[in-house]
């Protein structure tokens, strides 16, 4: 099996594992971690596709690789925003629950 296929199959499993955690885990911080696992699965798949595009003296297609760098930085920014939202949720409702509308509970 080529290295691209191996990492591609691993990436497919990572997306599944992350998606499962995103749905099943209750705590929002755990959901963020699961979402990052899922996202990294997409990145690895993309990286495997970049490796398949090797040619013209380059070991991999530089266009998807450059987009991956952009993606990793943007994923960090999105996670930071999500974490800040959760901390604010807990500060204003004393609970990390995503069930129901926190503003209806009158604890604001």
């Amino acid at each position, binding site marked *: *099996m080529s290295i*691209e*296929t*191996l*990492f*591609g*199959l691993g*990436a*497919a*499993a*990572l*997306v*599944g*594992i992350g*998606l*499962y955690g995103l*749905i*099943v*885990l*209750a*705590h929002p*911080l755990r959901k963020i*971690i*699961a979402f990052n*696992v899922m996202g*990294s699965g997409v990145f*690895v*798949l993309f*990286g*495997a*596709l*970049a490796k398949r*595009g090797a040619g*013209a003296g*380059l070991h*991999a297609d*530089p*266009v998807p*690789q*450059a*987009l*991956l*760098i*952009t993606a*990793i*930085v943007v994923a*960090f*920014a*999105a*996670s*930071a*925003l999500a*974490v*800040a939202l*959760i*901390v604010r949720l*807990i500060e204003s409702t004393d*609970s*990390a*629950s995503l069930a129901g509308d926190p503003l209806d509970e009158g604890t604001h």
Partner: protein
Amino acid sequence: MTGGIVSLAIVLLLLALAVWAVLVREAFLAIAGFVAYGLLLSLVWVRLYGIDVALTEAAIGGGLTGAMLIGAVSRLRGTEAASRSERSGAGLHVVALLLCFSVTATLVLCVLLLPEPAPTLALQVSENLAVTGVGNPITGVLLAFRALDTLLEAIVLVIALIGVWSLAPDRLWGGRPGLRYHADPDGILAYFARLLPPLGIIFAVYIFWAGADHPGGKFQSATILAAMWMLVLMAGLADTPSIGHRGVRFGIVIGPLVFVAIGVLGLFSAGALLAYPEEWAKPMIVVVEVALLPTLTLVLGLLLAGPPARRGSAA
């Protein structure tokens, strides 16, 4: 052959750590697993010949994200037990499992049925790279061929930071983010916070400059600078600036502003937005990168610090 075994071991370990990060009971243990996962992921990039990606992943995916999550979990301690009681029912677990299996199975099919030969832009990049004056194809893509992506990314980062700041309660607007750290001034942390930053800055400048022709560049360099800044903050040697600080705000927007200005200049000098006039490509790329460096460093550091949490006088 050995290479194949190493790759297989990396994939299996990666999957094990992913399962750990999702299923383990304690959030702190999940984060510890996720940091190791991020570092292992950078090995995946090395195996896939993406050294630039590996550097970014190690710095951001393993380093900054881990630091941010550990900071968050310490503030969320009390809420973990409550959300455990909220566990979803068996029905949802089954549906989730089915959904995840079908998503994974679809992706597996896609991977196995990929077209041959693989579509690639490698030839176009290496044919046209000489025009940009940079030797690293990734830098060429980021700042010339796909400069629009990089510009939008810089803007997205600034917007994310504004989003984080906007979560501050009204009375703290304009204050300083995060806690004021106090550490033993003669302790090991303060010692490292004095010793490492000069070395880190030299290393960051090298990575930044080498990025033109070798793996590296402004993203990796900015992450190292942000990490050095965090070290100084955590050792209590300096305080985070208040978000109303004019110099800080200027540093945050300088990158996108210069990038847009050079992009618009391209309309007149080279006939297209974000185009560089011939002979001037390399100097203009350097100007954009230098302008993006403070923006990326400040935004990454301040995203990590979070929304303003203390009153601070705007200086």
